C-alpha cells in the first residue's frame, strides 16, 4: 500500500479528535503487532488493528474510513489487555466509530431488519448492536 504522509495531516485535527474521545495516547504504539496477532476477528479485516493505529498516528482519516475494520471490532478487549505499551485499542476503535456515527452515518439500519429476524433476535443483541453501530 502506498501511503502519502504530510506534517499537516499528522498534526491535524483528526488525531487530536481521536485522542479527545478515547483519552488514549496514540503515540504509545510502536507497531509490535501483538494486537493483530491476538485479534479474533483479524481474519475478516482488510486492515489489521496495528495498521489502523498507524493510520491514526499519520492522520490518514480517509484510509480508515475506507476500511471495514473499525466496524468489525466487537470490543472484546483482547488487544487492550495484551498491548505491551498499555494502549487501550478498544477505546481508539470506539472513538473512530463515533467520529463517523456523530456525522449521523449509521453503520446498520434498524429499519431494514426484517420482522421475522426481529422476532428471533434477543434484546441483548439488538441493544448492543444499536449501541455500537447506530448514531
Amino acid at each position: 500500500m502506498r501511503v502519502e504522509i504530510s506534517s499537516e495531516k499528522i498534526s491535524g485535527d483528526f488525531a487530536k479528535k481521536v485522542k479527545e474521545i478515547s483519552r488514549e495516547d496514540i503515540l504509545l504504539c510502536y507497531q509490535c503487532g501483538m494486537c493483530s496477532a491476538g485479534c479474533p476477528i483479524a481474519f475478516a479485516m482488510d486492515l489489521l488493528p496495528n495498521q489502523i493505529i498507524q493510520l491514526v498516528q499519520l492522520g490518514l482519516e480517509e484510509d480508515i474510513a475506507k476500511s471495514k475494520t473499525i466496524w468489525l471490532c466487537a470490543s472484546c478487549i483482547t488487544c487492550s489487555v495484551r498491548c505491551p505499551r498499555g494502549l487501550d485499542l478498544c477505546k481508539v476503535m470506539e472513538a473512530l466509530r463515533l467520529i463517523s456515527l456523530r456525522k449521523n452515518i449509521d453503520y446498520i439500519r434498524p429499519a431494514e431488519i426484517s420482522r421475522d429476524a426481529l422476532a428471533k433476535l434477543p434484546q441483548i443483541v439488538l441493544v448492543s448492536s444499536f449501541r455500537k453501530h447506530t448514531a
Partner: protein
Amino acid sequence: MKTRAKNFEDSAIASMAALGINLNEIPRWNCCGAVYSLADDDLIHQLAPVRDLIRVKEQEQGKVVVLCSLCFNTLKRANLLMRNDAEKRKTLNIFMDEEIDYNGEVEVVHLLEVLRDDIGWKTISDRLKVPLKNLKLAPYYGCTLLRPQEVAIDQVERPTILRQLLQALGAEPIDFPFAAKCCGSFQVIGNREVALESAWNILSSAVRWQAEALVLSCPLCDFNLAGKQEEIKQKYREFKGIPTLYFTQLLALAFGLDSKVCRFELNYQDPRPLLESKGLL
C-alpha cells in the same frame, strides 16, 4: 434474562435457594445498555448502569449479584467510574437530580464469584446429589467475565473458575483453546458472516477437544454459539451440533432439584438427549 434466558434465571434462583441464599431482584431495574461506553466524552450512556446501582444502594444492600456476563461487565465498569473519577461522578450526580448521590458504594459481583468466594467449592461438592459423572464439558468464558483486567473475575489469560465449578459438580472439564475468544457478539446483526465464523471457530475447537457440551454464563454468547448452529450447519456440513448449558442449569441438576427448574426446553440446542444418555435425567 426475563424473556430469552429464563432457563438461566430460573435455574440460578432455584440452585441458590438450595444453597440457602435467596436472590432478591432489584426493584425498578432498567436495561444496563448491554455494552459499556468506551468514549471519554460519552456520559449519557453511563446513566443506565449507574441508575441500577442506585436502586441497589436504596435497598441498603452492599452487594449486587449479576448473572449475565455482559450486564456484569457494564455494571462493574460503571461502578469503577463512579468510584474513581471525581469529575465524572459529580457531573452524573448533578444530572440525575432526583436520585440520591452515588459514589460507587455498592460492590458488583458475578454469581460465579459468589459460588467460589462466599460459598466455596467444598460446600458445593458436599451438597451434590447427582454427580455429573462422565460428562465432558467445555467451560466457555467469552470476553466480559475476564476483560478488562480491572473487572476480571479470574486470571485474564488463564481462567479456571468454571473448571473448578465443574470439578466440584463431578463433571469432566475440557479446557480448549477458544474458551475466552469472542463469540462474535452483536456482530450477528451488522456482520453476520463474521459472527457465524467466530462461533464456528469456538464450536469446532470444542468438538475437536471432545467436549460434549459447552458451559457458559452469557445470553448473548448462547445466542451466537447455540442459537446460530442451524445456520452454521448449512455452511459446515460436517458439523453435527453441540448443546450449550448455563452453569446454573448444571448446578440445579447436580443438586438433584426438579429438572423443571432447568427449563431445558428453552435451550437452543436440546441438551436432554445427552443428559439422558449419561443417566442424569
